[in-house]
């Protein structure tokens, strides 16, 4: 019995006890027991902060329980050894690397060099292949890095010119990285099935989806809302596809509509399907997350540049004019109802130009 009591003070469980038994507290310190103030609350960026704050003066049993667990977690998170240089799967989604951070080590760590079994190869990819190891083609990473940088540059420049960038990744698990990349690049995402005909038959499939007119600073201009009726659906200016193998229809439609495409080309994929191939492993989520993140960051830089220029009153692209907006999309003539004299005035310089 005595021995057990003695052992108590060494155990980690002792710290977990919310109410310390008098005997253990005597062992823990040499000072006289005094009543302490409640622990100071730490300001944090945790989304649960509101909830934690609400439970500061807990009312119900559940709130008390939650607060107790939270306190224990705070206490124990500091214990133990600190692990460094570990892989954080969330990190690549939360804070993806920039195109300038591309290194061969980064690509190697993400497993982008692993191709497919040699029997499944597409010989058109031979220029991207470094060699064979254990019956599997190895993609040469310096090529991957170069092509990835080129693709990042394309994304950045399209974004800087106000282009519409569509990120497509329809495999299981690619959803979060696609949404994150689109969020960063101010682009658009598709993580479920591409509806065939969204480009070639856009009016039928995307006709009901909402569009808006924005100024160069990306602020919506509601006064042009009426002019958007009867307009053809919007087509992307660049498509980034993480799994070209499954999205043949998407890439074909892009080809028909002269939309440039960027795609991750594994050793079994056809590199001629996309405009800007990135030879890399498209089966590892870590690899695709990395590439999507890098392209998202590139788009972010482009958008930032575009908005900075717009604040100075410049654009790299030719903005749509109010007159063009007011033209009837079918006849190409000025609509009777819209504009009036203002439209005529604005259309005058345009006719001169032509």
């Amino acid at each position, binding site marked *: 019995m005595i021995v057990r009591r003695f052992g108590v003070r060494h155990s980690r469980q002792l710290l977990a006890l919310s109410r310390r038994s008098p005997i253990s507290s005597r062992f823990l310190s040499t000072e006289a027991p005094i009543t302490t103030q409640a622990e100071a609350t730490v300001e944090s960026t945790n989304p649960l902060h509101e*909830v934690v704050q609400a439970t500061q003066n807990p009312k119900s049993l559940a709130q008390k329980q939650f607060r107790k667990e939270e306190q224990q977690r705070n206490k124990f998170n500091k214990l133990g050894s600190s692990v460094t240089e570990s892989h954080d799967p969330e990190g690549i989604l939360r804070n993806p690397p920039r195109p300038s951070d591309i290194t061969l080590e980064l690509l190697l760590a993400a497993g982008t060099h692993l191709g497919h079994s040699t029997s499944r190869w597409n010989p058109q990819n*031979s220029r991207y292949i470094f060699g064979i190891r254990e019956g599997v083609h190895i993609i040469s990473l310096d090529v991957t890095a170069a092509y990835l940088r080129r693709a990042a540059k394309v994304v950045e*420049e399209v974004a800087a010119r106000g282009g519409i960038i569509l990120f497509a990744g329809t495999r299981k698990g690619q959803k979060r990285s696609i949404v994150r990349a689109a969020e960063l690049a101010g682009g658009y995402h598709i993580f479920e099935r591409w509806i065939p005909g969204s480009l070639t038959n856009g009016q039928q499939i995307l006709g009901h989806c*909402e569009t808006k007119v924005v100024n160069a600073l990306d602020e919506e201009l509601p006064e042009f809302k009426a002019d958007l009726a009867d307009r053809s659906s919007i087509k992307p200016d660049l498509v980034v596809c993480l799994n070209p193998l499954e999205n043949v229809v998407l890439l074909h439609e892009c080809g028909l509509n002269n939309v440039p495409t960027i795609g991750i080309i594994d050793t079994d994929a056809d590199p001629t399907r996309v405009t800007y191939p990135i030879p890399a492993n498209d089966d590892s989520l870590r690899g695709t997350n990395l590439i999507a993140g890098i392209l998202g960051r590139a788009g972010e*830089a482009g958008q930032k540049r575009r908005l900075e220029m717009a604040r100075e009153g410049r654009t790299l692209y030719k903005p749509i004019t109010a007159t063009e907006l007011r033209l009837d999309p079918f006849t190409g003539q000025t609509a009777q109802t819209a504009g009036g004299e203002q439209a005529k005035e604005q259309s005058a310089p345009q006719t001169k130009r032509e």
Partner: protein
Amino acid sequence: MARPTSNGLVQAMQSLRLHSPLPQRSCLSSLRHHSRTYATETETQAQPDSTPDMPVQAAPEIDFSTNFIRSPARIIPASPSYFSGNPRFVDHVLNLESLQARYASLPILPAGDAPRMAWFKLKQFREYVGEQVPVKKYKSLIKILQRLNRIQPDMIPGEVRSVLDSFLRPGNPYAIKHAPPEVDENGKARAKGKRKESTAVVQLVEGEGEIIVNGKSLVEAFPRVHDRESALWALRSTQRMDKYNAWVTVRGGGVTGQTEAVTLAIARALMVHEPGLKPVLRRAGVITVDARRVERKKPGHVKARKMPAWVKR
């Protein structure tokens, strides 16, 4: 085995590398630049491009001081999920998933204990979203809502609460509490019962055991003894035969259905007078609703399940 020897393939690869116009040159030179400045490179490229072939200057046409903010520049989709075909639905799902991830660590109730919520039915949901949402996707969204609803009710964040409320049908049907039936000022207890196609309404008052069914006496209404026994089984099993008068209206169905509808109605009315009898009536089996109805006939069958006899040729 048709597998190529690794040596031969490597050699082929090397010869390809040597003789093909390789991207490696550019890659190597680009690698040499340690800090890459995308912005300046494209700036210098872009300006000579735009000047010679297009005499149009976008800049002078726009009046920066006044009109630049108000002049349109681009037509863009309103939602980042424009190309999915149902952008509003996808935006809802993404929003709910982000909420679920953010508040995943909050304590939750066991699956059955969460407060029952009247979410939008599929049709209402389609109207609310304004898109043709497939059943499967609707179900997956409801699943997320159910999970968010399982967070401890006193710890649920305001943000989650407001989002959940936006998916509720107007007027919560589960909040309506029916008032327990009571004996009215004339001492009457009124109750309904159903069985098969029959519906019975019973008005039960304290009395000497007189029963009137559709204006007739019990014997006239139910000539068979067995029917009379079962109609009054609630009173018989509790020994209340001579303590109550009942005025019964029963419509629809056949004799058995009518009899057992009356049984149920009398048992319910008796419970209004004497709630303490409930366990006894339960054991007597008179307050258990028999929800069975006639099964419909199916095409290819003779009756509901009977198949036509097999005929050779």
